[in-house]
């Protein structure tokens, strides 16, 4: 296999070929680096490419593979990490010139776990400045362009992660999600992205946006690939007090259990309001597929929906400004206009509003626990719209894009976005599946069942110009 055939593989397919010694980590990494060289002028998914280090690591892993010493399914797999994750010896900019020369001495916990599992880190991915927005129109490093239509945004804030995986510049990526920042670019770029339960994955070594809403998770082509990455990055971390001391299930072993008998709830409030007609139709068709596979679909009502947008913003912005205030006071001009405005707003939210939002959050979780006695999953459109054009206003676009995703940052539930079709103009649409707390396995298994029955996740963007990956 060569070049584009290699970069069109899913992580699981590449892993099997490495295990059978049909391809080497060096060949695979070389192919991804070649994609980066070819496509970056258009897509702009990377802030830093770590080519030399990646090739050195790949050679080492290739030698191990030749000796039959495989570390696991991620052995020799090229991955990208959002430029919020500390990587020892390389800059972590968070998409801001303020951190352009910030070089950490150690890896973030999740980056260290990826490396230990044999992943090859090929670079640091572009994002919305400081992750505070959903378009990835970065004024300092340039916008990440959507591989399905280069005149449109890739979504955000993990836009580089979404675009890079979509075009095969890496086979998996890490993103963060505070209001939808894994699921939104996954939906807009036609890939699969999982926000795990709050506390499932360590935040140590990740530039914060909002400590009590931030989540780390995988962005890949398939649910199977997300399961393989999550198994590696999840689990207790004594350096992060918010990380729960729970054992990590073998998600990849639960994938084939199917959806027969699972109860899927369709929320009646909020999630279908203002949804584009084509998006709504495609998501409803996806739910029909799950029903044909044996799931029971019913309507549900979610309490407190009118409170949730207020609660999210009343928590996110004050927490963000608590981190940024010293820099904002000293260098306000170094922030992009939209991010600066959001931070200034956060500085003016009264303390009582923040505390009350956290109290409301607790009430929402308690009420939704009751709903989840009646259903196993919720299904919604991931975003109400497809990728907006780059020239559209950022503040309005972000508000629309986060509408269906941020409720689950407030509750901390696991939620995945899977590709479920394309509009007539060729833009991908995402189905969001949401599970009970700590039940990522159910979310992944339903997403996998859907992907076994459909082929939307196999489509590659026109800018990829690649043959379909091997089945």
């Amino acid at each position, binding site marked *: 296999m060569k070049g584009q055939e290699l970069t069109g593989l899913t992580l699981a397919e590449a892993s099997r070929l490495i295990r059978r010694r049909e391809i080497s980590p060096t060949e695979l990494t070389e192919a991804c680096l070649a994609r980066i060289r070819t496509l970056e002028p258009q897509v702009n998914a990377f802030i830093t490419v770590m080519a030399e280090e990646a090739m050195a690591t790949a050679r080492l892993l290739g030698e191990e593979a030749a000796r039959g010493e495989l570390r696991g399914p991620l052995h020799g797999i090229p991955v990208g990490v959002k430029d919020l994750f500390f990587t020892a010896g390389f800059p972590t900019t968070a998409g801001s010139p303020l951190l352009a020369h910030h070089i950490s001495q150690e890896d973030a916990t999740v980056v260290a776990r990826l490396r230990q599992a044999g992943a090859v880190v090929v670079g640091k991915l572009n994002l919305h400045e400081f992750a505070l927005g959903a378009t990835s129109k970065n004024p300092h490093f340039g916008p990440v362009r959507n591989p399905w239509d280069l005149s449109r945004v890739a979504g955000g804030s993990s836009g580089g992660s979404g675009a890079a995986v979509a075009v095969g510049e890496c086979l998996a990526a890490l993103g963060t999600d505070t209001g939808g920042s894994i699921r939104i670019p996954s939906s807009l770029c036609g890939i699969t992205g999982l926000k795990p339960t709050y506390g499932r994955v360590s935040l140590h070594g990740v530039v914060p946006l909002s400590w009590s809403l931030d989540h780390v998770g995988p962005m890949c082509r398939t649910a199977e690939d997300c399961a393989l990455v999550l198994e590696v990055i999840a689990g207790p971390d004594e350096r992060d007090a918010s990380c729960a001391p729970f054992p990590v299930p073998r998600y990849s072993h639960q994938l084939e259990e199917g959806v027969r008998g699972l109860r899927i709830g369709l929320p009646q409030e909020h999630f279908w309001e203002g949804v584009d007609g084509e998006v709504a139709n495609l998501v409803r068709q996806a739910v029909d597929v799950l029903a044909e596979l044996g799931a029971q679909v019913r309507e549900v009502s979610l309490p407190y929906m009118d409170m949730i947008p207020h609660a999210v913003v*009343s928590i996110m912005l004050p927490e963000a400004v608590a981190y940024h205030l010293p820099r904002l006071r000293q260098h306000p001009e170094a922030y992009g206009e939209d991010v600066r405005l959001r931070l200034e707003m956060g500085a003016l939210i009264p303390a009582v509003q923040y505390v009350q939002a956290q109290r409301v959050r607790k009430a929402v979780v308690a009420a939704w626990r009751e709903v989840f006695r009646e259903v196993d999953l919720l299904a919604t459109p991931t975003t109400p719209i497809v990728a907006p054009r780059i020239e559209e206003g950022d503040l309005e676009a972000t508000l629309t894009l986060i509408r269906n995703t941020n409720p689950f940052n407030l509750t901390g539930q696991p939620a995945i976005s899977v590709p479920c079709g394309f509009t007539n103009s060729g833009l991908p649409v995402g189905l969001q599946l949401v599970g009970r707390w700590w039940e990522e396995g159910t979310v992944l298994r339903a997403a996998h069942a859907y992907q076994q029955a459909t082929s939307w996740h196999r489509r590659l963007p026109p800018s990829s110009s690649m043959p379909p990956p091997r089945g």
Partner: protein
Amino acid sequence: MTEEVRALAQAAGLPLPQERASLLSASLSMLWLGRDVLLSLPLGEEGPAAVFRAPATT
């Protein structure tokens, strides 16, 4: 409203010129409306326990 925003920003250590305070005013009125919506929910004596722990464990 703009003057109120300027005064609050000054207190937060973020002095704002008139035009910037004016820009913020429109968005802030929505945010402050949110405060009233949140405060309208009767939550009794319950506090936001274990906010930085996984919500599912609270």
